[in-house]
């Protein structure tokens, strides 16, 4: 789906990604790694927000939408208008807006301005905007980092239902193992900066909160920690 060949990205003398070759397939892919490991940099390159790199990113002309780490809601617009603002004029479909916002439990707030909403409601709106846009893949950059665990689990559960219903692809950047395990079909773990190699884990876990208490979850968590820590020691 997205092929990355020989990708190198530097900020001055600091190289973040070096000769990286990567394939991102269908479904939900999570880029996991510690802060500063180049995950967001890679997402921004895939999104086309930074065009200053060497190598090749082939996204097969896929339509993309994005959910940034911050809400980025225009304060003078209602949630409905914030969503409509990014949509192509011929793609403003109120039925779809209602459907997705209903799935994310913010439909009743569509005519409110962002300042009247809680952090969690604004986050849901930013996520809804990413899903309502007619894209083949939704890119998400640490979308839950500002939320408490309870709210995070609730939103993740809603996203999983939405992903299932919509059959959408998702590329998520996170440093949180729980988020990764709850959402991912595939986890790509970045080892070190500059990123040259990585570990790919294919998962087939039940995507619900109950999974957090299961031994399978603990086992996967242990494997990821083991991998990350062994990397640190080396």
């Amino acid at each position: 789906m997205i092929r990355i060949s020989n990708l190198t990205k530097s900020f001055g003398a600091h190289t973040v990604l070096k000769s990286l070759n990567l394939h991102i397939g269908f479904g939900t892919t999570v880029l996991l790694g510690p802060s500063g490991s180049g995950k967001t940099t890679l997402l921004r390159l895939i999104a086309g927000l930074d065009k200053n790199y060497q190598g090749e990113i082939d996204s097969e002309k896929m339509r993309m939408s994005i959910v940034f780490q911050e809400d980025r809601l225009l304060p003078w617009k209602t949630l409905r208008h914030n969503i409509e603002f990014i949509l192509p004029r011929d793609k403003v479909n109120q039925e779809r807006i209602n459907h997705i916002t209903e799935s994310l439990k913010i439909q009743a707030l569509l005519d409110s301005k962002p300042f009247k909403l809680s952090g969690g409601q604004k986050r849901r709106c930013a996520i809804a905007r990413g899903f309502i846009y007619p894209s083949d893949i939704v890119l998400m950059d640490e979308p839950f980092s500002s939320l408490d665990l309870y709210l995070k689990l609730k939103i993740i559960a809603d996203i999983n239902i939405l992903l299932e219903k919509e059959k959408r692809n998702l590329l998520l950047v996170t440093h949180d193992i729980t988020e990764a395990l709850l959402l991912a079909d595939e986890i790509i773990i970045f080892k070190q900066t500059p990123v040259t190699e990585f570990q790919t884990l294919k998962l087939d876990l039940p995507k619900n909160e109950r999974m957090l208490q299961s031994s399978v979850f603990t086992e996967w968590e242990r494997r990821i920690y083991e991998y990350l820590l062994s990397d640190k020691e080396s």
Partner: protein
Amino acid sequence: MKRFLLSKLLPLIGFLLLWQISSLFFNQLILPSPLAVFGKILVIMKSLTFYSALLVTLLRALGGLIIALSLGIFIGFAMHFSKAVSALMHPVIITLQSLPIISWLLLALIWFDSSVIPVFIVAVSTIPIIILNVYEGLKEVSGEYLELVTFYKLDFRRCLQGLYLPSIATYIISAYKIIIGLCIKTSVMAEVIARVKQGIGTEMNLAWINIDTAEVLAYTVLIVFFTFATERLLTFIFSGTLRNYQ
């Protein structure tokens, strides 16, 4: 209520008392009493000429303001999007800001017909404020929003309507108090100097020629009152708009 009495009414009464006492020591031609000025205000407000003069003055101020807004917004945008225009316009704005209005008035007397002069003076005195507010407003458009519109490849028209204009609206609306006061004051001043056929300035000029100090002061009080009233009216109108943009 007590607070209003202490903060607003008492200083006003004190000022009027001081004025009344001072007027006892001067000739009425030099300093008429507040009562004499108040009497003149009543006479002026009963005459139809005053209202037509007021309307003409306000229309001139509005005309100048519309010109300044149109040009100011255009130049502000051009400065934001072009470094060359910005480099070219900065010294022009500094010059416009530091040039005394009287210099513009003298030049306008040479260049224009007298009735146009107040409109021109209002425009040149408010345009730097508008340009700078538009420019600053555009600078404050968050990079996060710009990234959002870049990612979704939104056209300029949509960015203008949804992002840029609302961003500068808060700046222009917050500067309107200064702008309104400046528009009315400069319009009247230009009317006095340019000796236009109609306007509050014309009436003040006539009062001055007749050495009717009470009338000159009465018009001054009326200008202050109408400037304040216009500001309050616009605050009322804009309060909803401002809330929309916050």
